[in-house]
């Protein structure tokens, strides 16, 4: 039992944080570790966070629930792994919204979450949200126009599978762990993912072309905390942690994937000879028009659940517009 009084008396609260990234991944090395150290320092050592990377404590799709039930005290994962549980959060991953980079996409998400403050995440204390930013198409044969994509087998799961279907591609759903072999042998001819995957999962070894599609894909990550554990902290410690959260969101989290994407892109182009393809504006327009209905379906779906679908969608579009101008 660690109540607020205990903490004032100097008792240390030890928190376990579960996530699925490998221990050598920047999410652990550049974000979680320094952020945890900063929290320990800011709370004079009263809040101590131990990270369990690489699914050692909880599997990726169990992390949110695991934080609610107290298996872990904190967790970082994707909302979309438990599809249907976070209907509003899907707004930040919808295709047809242009994000220049992960800075824009992350800021839109974090600010959007604060503004909308949806019911579905009230059972934990959100620390921060960040995104991969836009994903691109990496393929074995060049995709320069919509016609090149018709009937092409592309690995994608969840919302992305629907997106590719609307574009006329042939989405094949399989786990990311199967994708390398499948690409290598040509079971699928491409993948829709953040550029980071080219290096992280070595997909650049088995694909040749990269078509830039900054309007097709985004994945939203959360860092969250068990509500009882949060409420047990003293107000001073809570304030200190919130300050650290904002600092690390701006300085590290929001641009984390941009840094990785750049490094992956450099490696893919220079070492693996991957060729970058940029769509013309007219071509991009055709693609965006085709995926637009997914946004309308999203709005209708939320409305059917008695949530403000249109308002959520407009918030996302407005914020994207605003931050695309700020972070070019």
């Amino acid at each position: 039992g660690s109540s607020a009084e205990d903490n004032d008396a100097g008792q240390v609260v030890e928190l376990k944080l579960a996530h699925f990234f490998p221990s050598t991944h920047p999410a652990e090395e550049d974000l979680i570790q320094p952020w945890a150290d900063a929290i320990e320092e800011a709370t004079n050592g009263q809040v101590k966070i131990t990270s369990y990377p690489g699914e050692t404590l909880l599997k990726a799709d169990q992390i949110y629930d695991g934080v609610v039930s107290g298996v872990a005290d904190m967790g970082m994962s994707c909302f979309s792994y438990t599809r249907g549980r976070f209907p509003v959060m899907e707004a930040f991953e919808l295709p047809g919204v242009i994000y220049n980079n992960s800075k824009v996409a992350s800021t839109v998400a974090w600010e959007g979450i604060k503004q909308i403050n949806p019911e579905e995440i009230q059972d934990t204390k959100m620390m921060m949200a960040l995104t991969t930013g836009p994903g691109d198409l990496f393929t074995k044969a060049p995709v320069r126009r919509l016609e090149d994509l018709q009937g092409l087998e592309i690995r994608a799961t969840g919302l992305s599978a629907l997106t590719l279907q609307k574009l006329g591609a042939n989405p094949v759903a399989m786990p990311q762990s199967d994708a390398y072999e499948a690409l290598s042998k040509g079971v699928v001819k491409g993948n829709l993912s953040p550029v980071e995957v080219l290096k992280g999962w070595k997909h650049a070894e088995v694909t040749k072309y990269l078509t830039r599609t900054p309007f097709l894909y985004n994945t939203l990550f959360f860092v969250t905390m068990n509500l009882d554990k949060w409420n047990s902290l003293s107000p001073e410690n809570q304030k200190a942690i919130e300050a650290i959260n904002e600092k690390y969101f701006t300085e590290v989290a929001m641009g984390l994937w941009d840094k990785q994407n750049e490094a992956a892109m450099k490696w893919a182009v220079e070492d693996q000879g991957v060729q970058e393809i940029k769509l013309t504006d007219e071509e991009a327009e055709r693609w965006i028009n085709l995926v637009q209905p997914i946004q309308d379906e999203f709005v209708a779906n939320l409305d059917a659940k008695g949530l403000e679908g249109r308002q959520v969608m407009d918030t996302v579009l407005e914020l994207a517009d605003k931050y695309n101008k700020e972070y070019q």
Partner: protein
Amino acid sequence: MFKFTGLVSGLSRILDKIAGLCMVCAMLLVVANILLRALFSRPVLGVYEYVTFLTVATIGLSLAHCALQNGHIAVSFMFDRLPLKIQELVDLIINTAGLLFWSICAWQVAIFANSTAASGVVSPTSQIPLHPFIYLAAFGLLALGLVLLVRTMESVQRLLQPSLTPLSTPGIKAAKSIQKAAAVNK
């Protein structure tokens, strides 16, 4: 008692049959999808999720029958040397512990299914609700608990009437279908 034992073994046999059917379906589904993909370039989206659901059914529904055949293996060599009375007593304790443990697991998995139903989680691609399959797993564990209840009752009986049946060690009583079939094949 005998009626109950018969009921439980009948139930687990039926469940195992359904489990086998699910395995056949999973195989056919994977092969059909490969053919559709390789020959007609028209794979069924989310097949791997369907296969996953069928796998849950296969495993969940065969747990009880596996236990009935003493298929869940144990280490027996050190214990066999103890006096029979002690063996029987410890057997009773272990069986009761197993019964309690898996019944609690069944209950907990059902709670997990409840909360999944409430939060509306669906599979990412085919968007099929997950909770029916979690209930199925819970049901399989419950059936496993029933088999262990039979085992516990048998332990009690042996302890009260030592002359009734000799103690069966796990593995000896286990299905020898392989050897039987080997004879058939010859």
